[in-house]
């Protein structure tokens, strides 16, 4: 009964979305307030119905209702509760349901909290948002219904892919989708603005919080995904330039560009048509990401649903949404007025440079990801593009970006004094040199590129800090004065400082892992000791025991340094009998500056009692994720900025009209 209710609610949501996609749009064109106001209850109703549907599916998973095909295919009665719930979105149908749930949630949030939006813009935004909703709801109901029953019901399920049974991955999709789908809001705002034919600073101010929220979610989602790859795949790598990783990384790059160009629209009323285009492209990249993953056009470890019929549907959806928006753009954008002029050396100029580099980087990743597909389509052969391509093209684009990142915020709007900004950064430069010398001392003979990486990381981090101390006049004014300035500083500027500093921390981590990682692969018998990076690791024993839905083979290693005991490590190999797959669980000992990583491999054949073991020493690796979390915190702090909540236009209106006036 409950699954049928979920199915029914989903169909109801589709009809509500149809109403929301049409009536408010017509109302906005005619100037009919009543029709426009349909948007709010429709958006909230649509969200509620999808939530009911999602909860119905979750219920089926929690009680292990094996009369539902989706539960049979992706769950098992022995599975821990966490993964029963995570199983809801650990499969194609459920993850699409989560997709529309988040889409409707964003729509509902605009309906509820968008009081300061002009009524026509709000109506149009919600209509566009509902059009996307209609398309995806149709997609789910027609090709990926999660509520299909099986009769007779099997006794137990076939279990979720063991690789996905992991806390890191359990929460990876919700964050990732929050980001992907959040960019739909920027898209809806852009299309609504094109329909209105008006883009002004107020528009940029309304778009920015939604973009910020999506960006923060996506940052977290990508970080969780790469953390998972790091400890679960057991190879010690954290980024593989895998097509599915790239699919999430491209919207992130474009979204980062969008965040920055929206600032120019908001503050200076310039770069308008570019920002609109970027908003459309960012969401398009999210859709392309969904298309790539769901259709199986490119295969990868993460693609757990591959079905051409669904591919055709998503492609159609992608074409209608993007081609429609770009057509509207081609018609409307040329008539948009150019805004304020600026000199090349200025804050605007720096932000344009940021946009150029980020969009080129996006294009590079895009080309590298899709090149095999392009060649195949014209029968030019099958190739694969690996990490060497991305490292050779992507990194050179990031170097000037990071170098400019510290300078940009110190430049004035319109026309700036580059020499002055650089001289204010002299402390950052000194600290950077100290860091490089420190790295040189600690790791004699490391690659030269590593020193560049350290320099960029330090420059980004200290540049961000210097910008902040400069603004609050730390050490130049009395402390009380600095404190007052720090408190009075807008949250958005705190957000920027935090996010930029986080980027520096993450770069340090990436550099450390790429340059100074050490690896030992050997066969060890219990009692053997291996040395790595000044640590001794003694292999004590291996024991096998059944846990929940898997069989664990747990190794015990004693870690010490100069004979002094540090920790006991337990790497594991897990065998999942239901799905007949095994996973490796690396044991990681972190001191927040470096990781010691141990993987227990397979037992050697021939009964010698030896096990293949892999040991890695990863300097600075934890900083990659610490940096990402700092960036996300920066995004959230910026999101809490007062001006997003207060909305200047609303206040201006209130000032003019202290009391509501009766209609004439």
């Amino acid at each position, binding site marked *: 009964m409950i699954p049928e209710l979920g199915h029914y609610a989903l169909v109801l949501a589709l009809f509500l979305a149809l109403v929301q996609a049409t009536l408010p749009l017509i109302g906005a064109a005619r100037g009919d307030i009543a029709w426009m106001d349909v948007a709010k209850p429709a958006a909230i109703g649509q969200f509620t119905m999808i939530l009911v549907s999602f909860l119905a599916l979750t219920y089926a998973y929690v009680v292990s209702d094996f009369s539902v095909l989706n539960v049979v295919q992706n769950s098992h009665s022995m599975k821990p509760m966490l993964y029963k719930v995570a199983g809801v979105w650990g499969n194609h149908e459920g993850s699409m349901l989560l997709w529309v749930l988040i889409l409707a949630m964003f729509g509902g949030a605009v309906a509820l909290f968008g009081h300061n939006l002009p009524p026509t813009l709000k109506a149009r935004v919600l209509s566009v948002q509902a059009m996307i909703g209609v398309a995806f709801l149709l997609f789910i109901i027609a090709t990926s219904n999660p509520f299909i029953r099986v009769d007779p019901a099997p006794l137990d399920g076939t279990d979720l892919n063991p690789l996905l049974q992991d806390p890191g991955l359990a929460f990876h999709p919700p964050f990732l989708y929050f980001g992907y789908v959040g960019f739909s809001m920027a898209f809806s705002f852009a299309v609504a603005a094109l329909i209105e034919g008006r883009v002004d600073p107020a528009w940029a101010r309304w778009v920015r919080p939604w973009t910020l929220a999506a960006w923060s979610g996506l940052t977290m989602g990508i970080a969780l995904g790469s953390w998972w790859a790091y400890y679960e795949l057991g190879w010690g790598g954290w980024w*593989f330039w*895998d097509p599915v990783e790239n699919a999430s990384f491209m919207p992130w790059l474009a979204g980062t560009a969008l965040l920055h160009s929206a600032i120019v629209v908001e503050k200076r009323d310039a770069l308008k048509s570019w920002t609109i285009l970027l908003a459309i492209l960012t969401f*398009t990249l999210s859709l392309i990401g969904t298309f790539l993953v769901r259709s199986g056009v490119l295969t990868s470890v993460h693609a757990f649903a591959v079905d051409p019929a669904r591919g055709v549907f998503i492609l159609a959806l*992608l074409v209608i949404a993007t081609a429609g928006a770009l057509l509207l753009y081609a018609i409307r954008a040329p008539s948009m007025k150019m805004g304020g002029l600026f000199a090349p050396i200025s804050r605007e100029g720096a932000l344009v440079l940021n946009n150029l580099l980020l969009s080129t980087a996006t294009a590079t990743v895009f080309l590298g990801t899709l090149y095999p*597909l392009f060649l195949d389509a014209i029968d030019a052969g099958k190739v694969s593009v*690996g990490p060497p391509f991305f490292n050779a093209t992507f990194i050179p684009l990031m170097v000037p970006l990071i170098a400019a990142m510290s300078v940009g915020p110190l430049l004035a709007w319109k026309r700036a004094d580059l020499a002055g900004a650089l001289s204010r950064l002299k402390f950052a430069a000194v600290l950077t040199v100290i860091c490089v010398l420190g790295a040189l001392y600690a790791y004699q003979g490391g690659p030269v590129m590593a020193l560049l990486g350290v320099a960029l990381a330090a420059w980004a981090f200290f540049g961000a800090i210097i910008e902040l101390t400069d603004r609050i006049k730390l050490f130049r004014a009395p402390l009380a004065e600095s404190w007052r300035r720090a408190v009075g500083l807008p949250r958005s500027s705190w957000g920027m400082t935090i996010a930029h500093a986080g980027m520096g921390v993450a770069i340090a981590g990436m550099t450390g892992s790429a340059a100074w990682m050490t690896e030992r*692969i050997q066969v060890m018998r219990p009692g053997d000791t291996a040395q790595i990076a000044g640590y001794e690791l003694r292999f004590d024993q291996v024991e096998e025991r059944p846990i929940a839905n898997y069989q664990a083979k747990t190794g015990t290693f004693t870690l010490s340094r100069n004979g002094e005991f540090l920790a006991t490590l337990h790497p594991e190999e897990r065998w999942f009998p239901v799905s007949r797959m095994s996973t490796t669980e690396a044991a990681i000992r972190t001191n927040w500056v470096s990781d010691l990583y141990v993987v227990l491999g397979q037992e050697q054949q021939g009964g010698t009692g030896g096990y293949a073991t892999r040991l890695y020493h990863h300097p600075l690796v934890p900083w990659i994720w610490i940096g990402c979390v700092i960036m996300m915190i920066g995004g959230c702090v910026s999101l809490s900025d007062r001006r997003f909540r207060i909305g200047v236009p609303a206040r201006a209106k209130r000032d003019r009209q202290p009391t509501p006036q009766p209609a004439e």
Partner: protein
Amino acid sequence: MRRLIYILPLGLFVVLAGYFAVGLTRDPSVVPSALIDKPVPEFTLPPLLKDGQGLASAELKGKVQLVNVFASWCVPCRVEHPVLMRLAKEQGVTVKAINYKDKPEDAIRWLNQGGNPYAAIGADQDGRVSIDWGVYGVPETYVIDAEGRIRYKVVGPVMPDEVERHILPLIKSLQGDLQG
């Protein structure tokens, strides 16, 4: 003229969508090789290492093994090298190699740096044998069954997911056939 710039994104997207539509009809995981399920071509290659083994078609029979085509000048080979090391050292898979159009001293230095996962290495200095194998770029990796037939081919570097998803399951099933 200025209008054209605004139409450009739409034009580019339409081309892209066309590619996607064609792409949907293809399966990227199938790498075409005329030699799949055929016996390995007849060949004999001298050993690369003075005290090592060379490679000849007769030696590729009797057990399931991998043949990897590599060169010291090939960047993707560096990427896949740790993966091959792990396959050989940990999974106990026999990996043999064809060293393609390479200077022996370079290849030897390269192996000294990164380790040698190969049970035997044949030096194919003029690339003739590789042509018979249908090699059209390094690296390439072939799975050979116990009867000396090519069963699977990977073009480009062997990545961890490729190993987990295709190579190891295939080797397991081929070895199973052998025992059963």
